[in-house]
């Protein structure tokens, strides 16, 4: 069993008028990438701010490598790097000066280290430019570079993909995965970009209305509740085929283009194909469609809130 880096135990944050985070507990192990999902106002950022000590939990404990954030703040933060709510950097300074400033807050970070991290995030050619001339994506990279300067064990990233171009997103993903594998850093990421999260994270936690709805690995999430999968049949008369499936199997069917989509277990494929062929239809192709994370996510939110969905 790998080492636990971050541990939250029954963490609750109550504001005067509402409970932002309610009794949340989870662990992140070293080398793990932990995705944190949830609609706006669900408590994602509040949780991350509590982990970084920017605000204090009303109840519960947060420990980083065994050091309590509340009681051993300095030791806990020595092991933590992060970027919360995408702050502007010091615009009047160059990228290098910004990194130098943050490096000077720690003991023994050499110029080489600064330059190395600048290279890792791909800013090595723009280090001499003032940060106020940077694009949002470049600022994001600078933010990640400053979070990594002191070799943290835990990296907290609030919306790291926002403002990045598609290429940047891919690079960032590779970069983070590399960090987790190579340096055994535990990474906690929150994002709205479900597709990216799906590809990036090992574990996903879904939070809604301050409560943790689900923590599962991606695989566990995708398996679904009853093991059913989405199957696509490419046929010549999709409307007719749809009717057949609905009438004879009572499955839920979606028709789109020249395909029908059926939610059914794997062993039903032969039976459905046979029935379609029996009715004189031609099948050009059959494939299993993975349920997208977005669908799973919507299902989860819907389920736990009794069908009441917030705008997402």
């Amino acid at each position, binding site marked *: 069993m790998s080492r636990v880096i971050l541990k939250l135990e029954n963490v609750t944050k109550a504001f005067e008028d509402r409970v932002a985070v309610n009794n949340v507990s989870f662990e992140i192990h070293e080398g793990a990438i932990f995705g944190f999902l949830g609609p706006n106002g669900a408590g994602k950022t509040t949780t991350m701010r509590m982990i970084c000590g*920017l605000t204090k939990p009303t109840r519960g404990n947060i420990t980083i490598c065994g050091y309590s954030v509340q009681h051993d703040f*300095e*030791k806990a*933060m020595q092991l933590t790097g992060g970027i919360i709510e995408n702050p502007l*950097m010091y615009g009047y300074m160059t990228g290098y000066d910004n990194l130098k400033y*943050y490096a000077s807050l720690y003991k023994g970070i050499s110029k080489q280290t600064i330059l190395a991290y600048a290279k890792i995030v791909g800013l090595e050619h723009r280090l001499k430019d003032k940060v106020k001339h940077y694009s949002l994506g470049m600022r994001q990279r600078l933010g990640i570079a400053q979070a990594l300067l002191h070799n943290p064990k835990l990296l907290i990233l609030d919306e790291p993909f926002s403002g990045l171009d598609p290429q940047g997103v891919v690079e960032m993903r590779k970069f983070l995965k590399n960090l987790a594998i190579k340096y055994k850093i535990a990474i906690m990421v929150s994002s709205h970009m479900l597709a990216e999260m799906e590809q990036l994270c090992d574990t996903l936690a879904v939070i809604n209305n301050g409560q943790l709805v689900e923590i599962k690995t991606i695989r566990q999430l995708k398996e679904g509740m009853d093991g059913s999968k989405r199957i696509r049949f490419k046929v010549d008369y999709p409307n007719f085929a749809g009717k057949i499936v609905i009438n004879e199997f009572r499955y839920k069917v979606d028709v789109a283009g020249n395909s029908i989509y059926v939610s059914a277990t794997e062993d039903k494929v032969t039976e459905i194909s046979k029935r379609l062929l029996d009715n004189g239809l031609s099948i050009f192709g059959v494939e299993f469609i993975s349920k997208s994370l977005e669908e799973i996510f919507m299902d989860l939110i819907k389920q736990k809130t009794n069908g009441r969905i917030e705008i997402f």
Partner: protein
Amino acid sequence: MGVFRIARAEFIKIFKKPSVYMMGVILAAVLVLSLLFFQPVGKQNIIVKLNGSTVGQLYDMFTNDSNPASGDIKKSNYDAQIAESLNQVNFYKTINERNESLSKVNGEFIILYNDLKTQISKEDNETKINETYTALKKKLDQYNTTFNNNQDLINNSEFYAHFTTLSIYSDLKSVLTELTNRSNDGSTPQIFVNFVENNNYIEKINSISSINQNFVSSTINYYKDQIKSKHTEYYNSVINSSTSQTLFLTLKNNLKTEIENFSKTLKLLENDTYDLCFININNLKELNNSITEAISIIESYDDPNSNETALKKHTNIVTKLHNLNLPSKIENFNKSLINYSVSTETLNDLEKILKENVEELKNGINTSIETLNNTPSSENLKDINDFNNLITNYKGLALNSKTLVDLTINLEAVTPLNSNKIVEYNGFNDFNIYEAKENITRANYFIKNGLYNQDYNDVFAFNKNSGLETSAYDFMFYAMKIATLIITVFAIFMAASLMASEYDSGTIKLLAIRPFKRWKIITGKLLATMIFVLIFVLFSFLTSLVAGVCLYPLDNTTVLAIFNSTQAFAIHPMLLMLLNIACIILEIFFYTVIALSISTMFRSYTAAISTSCIMFILALSLNILFGGAYWYSFIPFINADLFKFFGGSFLTTQVGGINQLFVPTLLTNANFYISLGIYGGTILILLIITYIVFKVKDF
């Protein structure tokens, strides 16, 4: 450790800000401007220089009043000044002695009388009783003699006239006369004691002598009572028996006499500058007007043109007088008078200092003259210089002693009053207790150390003491004074932006997740600002030192620093300069803390800068409006400049023509330790609040 790390990191940021270089340029420009605006002060006439004369001629000039060339160095001028000082001391001494001798005899008399009473009641033997009675009679004679001597003193001196405790003296005199008469008419001790007991004479004497300190007010009291009773009588005579015209006329004349007497006493008071200090001038003027009016009302009775009936005239005049409300006006005026006394110890000290020093100098001058007489042909320069010095010393002594006596007596009179009272009396607006104390300490130091050739008023300024036109230290002080204004504003901007800009750009979130407790972040930022201030102050100091040394001579003659108005230290001018710089840094620290606190608590750059700057400007200028007010010294930012407690107040008024606006606030009730307490307390409270707010804040 973390604090230094943060401070170091802040410095990386500070030196990347373009505004910092702008500040450096502005500071340099201001220092250059201060070079242009500095007005070197010409040396004032301190040392009497008489060149081109023989010593004999000098002596003639010094002693001979008729010589037109003597001018400033007339011996009689200084003699008069010293004599005036001594007279002043003697005047107060005489009053004190008079009261003391009288109360001493009074006490002895009462002890004897009590003895006699006890002996009679115990029915002791007759011889013993008679012995005591004889002693008592003798004491009564002594009492009378002392009393008469005192009264002679009072009657013979116009100067004392308005201080005379007339009513007290007349009351006491009547008691003494009756006691003397009774003791001389051959009555037995028993009869005498009975007589004294029946008439409560001992109580009367006691009540009279217990108030013998009230010089001015008792005079006024006497006339006030007279006028009051006359007025009442007069009023009643008209109201109750309207036909008694003869009585009315008598009373009218009596009243007029009393009012006129009172008016005369007031005129005497008004003419005497000393006493105007203690009297509300507005009250006095109002009272004088009312009295003039009252006299004219009374005189209008004799107006031949009036065809009113006598009765109607009476009634009119009485009503007019009544409406004038003279007795209550006098009452008000009386309230504004205060007790006026100087302690005998102070007077003895003053007299001793003066007499010893005058004697010493006079001997010096005489010895010098004797030597000259023995060698009449002597014309060498050394003798002339020595003689010059003696004359200068004599002049210095005269000036210093006058200051010392004037201020000491004024201070003693004011000390029992509270600050409100001092401000209330118009004449005292210009009298600053702290300044007076400081000047007394200074004059004392010079006289006691034989440093006569110091012109007391200008001593603290470096240039005045150096004996040269202007010293490099004078320019340094001037330049530092101006640089301080600029640096304080810079420090306020710096401290406010260090905190507020973190909030504005959101970088506070990136700072707060570093492994530093929150208090270390604040302290680190404060430290960074202070190092920044230190660099600017040192830059100004070195620049002004170099410029000063290049342009003016660097004179290292010791200067006199007066600490907290009571202790005098002769120190090297550079030491005083460093003390000045330490105080400047403390002052800037105060505004830095304010700016940092406000920007932390309210997250507002604008609020922090405007509040701090307004405080700074008020501290510079508010003393013009409220300098004398009692509460003024408790405003925290008034106490931020501590250099005034090292004699700094006088420096600024005289060096380089700095505008009066920049004179540090010198409080009438100033005290170094109280100011330090208010200064330290304010900073401590602000920092604690800031630390707590910053600690519990969510980012």
